[in-house]
């Protein structure tokens, strides 16, 4: 029994190592390619999707305002580095700390709410933040945006081209993915999934659901703000439209498509939703119609998302092979 679990853990490490290796090798085949730029965005979106998945997929708490934390990270970082002589790395940390603090403070009252009410409250929070991004013109530049945000740099390396940005974003994203996978197979991960399945039973078992929900909300906001800061420093320009309600829904769609609670699913969902508009011009006009349809259809017919579907498919195929092998013996 214990041996079986160790095997499972080994297999998980192997899968992650393989995934990380592929990700890190990809640029060798894509030198100077425009596609590398798309992959940078996939990295940022994966980071965001993983952050939201910690909250929604693990703990079962919905947020329709996560774009606000992304935006807060971007704006705090952008404002600190353009208006004050703050180092971009320091600004990244301050931005993440700001978002985490805000999440911690609003987390207690907001996560008392359940289901539909939580969705509405987070939606309201997201829109309030969006209004602030737009209206505090003196700080954020308002609807016309904030430009001239400096790139991050590490010694002689400046993160101002696609290749460098690729490694910057993906190393952080891979790190967060690994930490999230670790978390899911641990005491805290189990407690979060227990809250997701039955909050009452989890509490009766001694799980402090209130604190744990706030903790994961805070972590999720922290990671989202890092993504926002990375976005600001790689794009060097930000404007409120990237951080509105539509983007919150896009994030939600990513993790629903990929699979709730699955870290690789977050990557899959982020990759699909980032690439579709790049390659299908039609998609740009139809995007929200398609998001809406995907949310409905996947929730109705494929509740564990593409990753769940792939796993089921894999099991069927594996089962068939085993069966025919057994027959041949």
């Amino acid at each position: 029994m214990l041996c079986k679990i160790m095997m499972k853990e080994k297999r998980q490490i192997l899968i992650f190592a393989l995934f990380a290796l592929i990700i890190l090798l990809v640029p060798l085949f894509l030198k100077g390619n425009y596609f590398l730029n798309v992959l940078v965005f996939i990295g940022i979106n994966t980071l965001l999707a993983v952050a939201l998945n910690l909250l929604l997929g693990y703990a079962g708490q919905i947020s329709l305002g996560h774009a606000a934390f992304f935006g807060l990270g971007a704006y705090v970082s952008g404002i600190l580095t353009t208006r004050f002589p703050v180092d971009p790395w320091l600004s990244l940390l301050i931005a993440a700390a700001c978002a985490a603090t805000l999440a911690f403070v609003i987390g207690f009252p907001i996560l008392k709410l359940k289901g539909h009410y939580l969705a509405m409250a987070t939606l309201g929070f997201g829109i309030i933040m969006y209004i602030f991004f737009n209206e505090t013109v003196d700080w954020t530049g308002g609807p016309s945006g904030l430009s001239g945000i400096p790139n991050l740099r590490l010694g002689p390396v400046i993160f101002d081209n696609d290749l460098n940005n690729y490694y910057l974003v993906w190393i952080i994203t891979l790190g967060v993915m690994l930490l999230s996978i670790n978390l899911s197979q641990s005491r805290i991960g189990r407690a979060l999934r227990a809250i997701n399945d039955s909050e009452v039973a989890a509490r009766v078992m001694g799980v402090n659901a209130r604190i744990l929900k706030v903790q994961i909300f805070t972590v999720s906001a922290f990671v989202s703000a890092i993504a926002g800061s990375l976005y600001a420093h790689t794009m060097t320009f930000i404007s409120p439209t990237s951080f509105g309600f539509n983007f919150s829904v896009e994030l939600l769609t990513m993790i629903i498509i990929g699979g709730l609670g699955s870290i690789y699913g977050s990557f899959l969902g982020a990759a699909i939703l980032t690439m579709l508009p790049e390659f299908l011009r039609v998609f740009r006009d139809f995007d929200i119609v398609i998001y809406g349809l995907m949310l409905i259809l996947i929730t109705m017919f494929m509740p564990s998302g593409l990753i769940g579907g792939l796993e089921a498919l894999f099991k069927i195929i594996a089962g068939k092979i085993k069966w025919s092998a057994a027959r041949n013996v």
Partner: protein
Amino acid sequence: MDNSSQLVQYVLSGLSNGAIYALIGFGFAIIHNATGILNFAQGEFVMLGGMFTIFILSFLNLPLAAAIVLAIILSTLVGILFERLAIRPLKNIKPLSLVIITIGASIFIRGAAMLIWGKDTHALPAFSSNNPLYVYGATIMPQHLWIFGITLLIIIVNKLFFSYSILGKAMRACAYNAHAASLVGIDVKIMVLLSFAVSAAIGSMAGIIIAPLTMTSYDVGIMLGIKGFCAVIIGGMSSGLGTVLGGLLLGLLESLGAGYISASYKDAIAFIILLLILFIRPEGLFKQKETQRV
């Protein structure tokens, strides 16, 4: 304009917006009480009402009254389709799935509206003349009177429907206890369908009567929807007086806040009120606290 007439002006526009919020709130309450679902697509019915009317007016050249009736029927059909296609087939009715599906439906309807009607804002002609009336120095558009009149009418019809008609009583029975209702021979499925239909109809009416004043476009649903939700939360999820008061209160605060504090934060005011109510008194301002049952 002197100070007092300015105040009258703010109060007036606040009340008329508030009446609309109350109607949208009714839509939320009717579906929620019949099914436990908070329909995130509620605001889209409001948008559809206005957009359908404009569309019918410009393409079919029907008189305004006929266009309005047709628009309400079309919006109601959308509500019915939504229930039949996306809600009834559901087997796994986890609250989270329902939230996601109604959000999906909401952005699907919004996206479809954008594809069909474009991103422009449209104006619906006023129901009667455009000549303003003057009261205490404030201007009233006749449309304001239409809004008050129709809202009052809907409130009365709504009250009569749920208190006296067999159908209305059956719907209320489902809201109290669906299982018990089914035991006395009420077809719960039909009642759920009906709640979506009634809610879509009321929502679209709200969208139609406000359209001449505020203009309309494919994306007005989300803001109006959330403000309607805010009204119904203040009212304690009822389709009655509490929600009417909630809507009017919200409309007033919003309009006074925009007038005296800052116009650019007008929308933020509504959402801050929403969050405060959800945090402090999620059971509404007018309800007594009840012991929570698990």
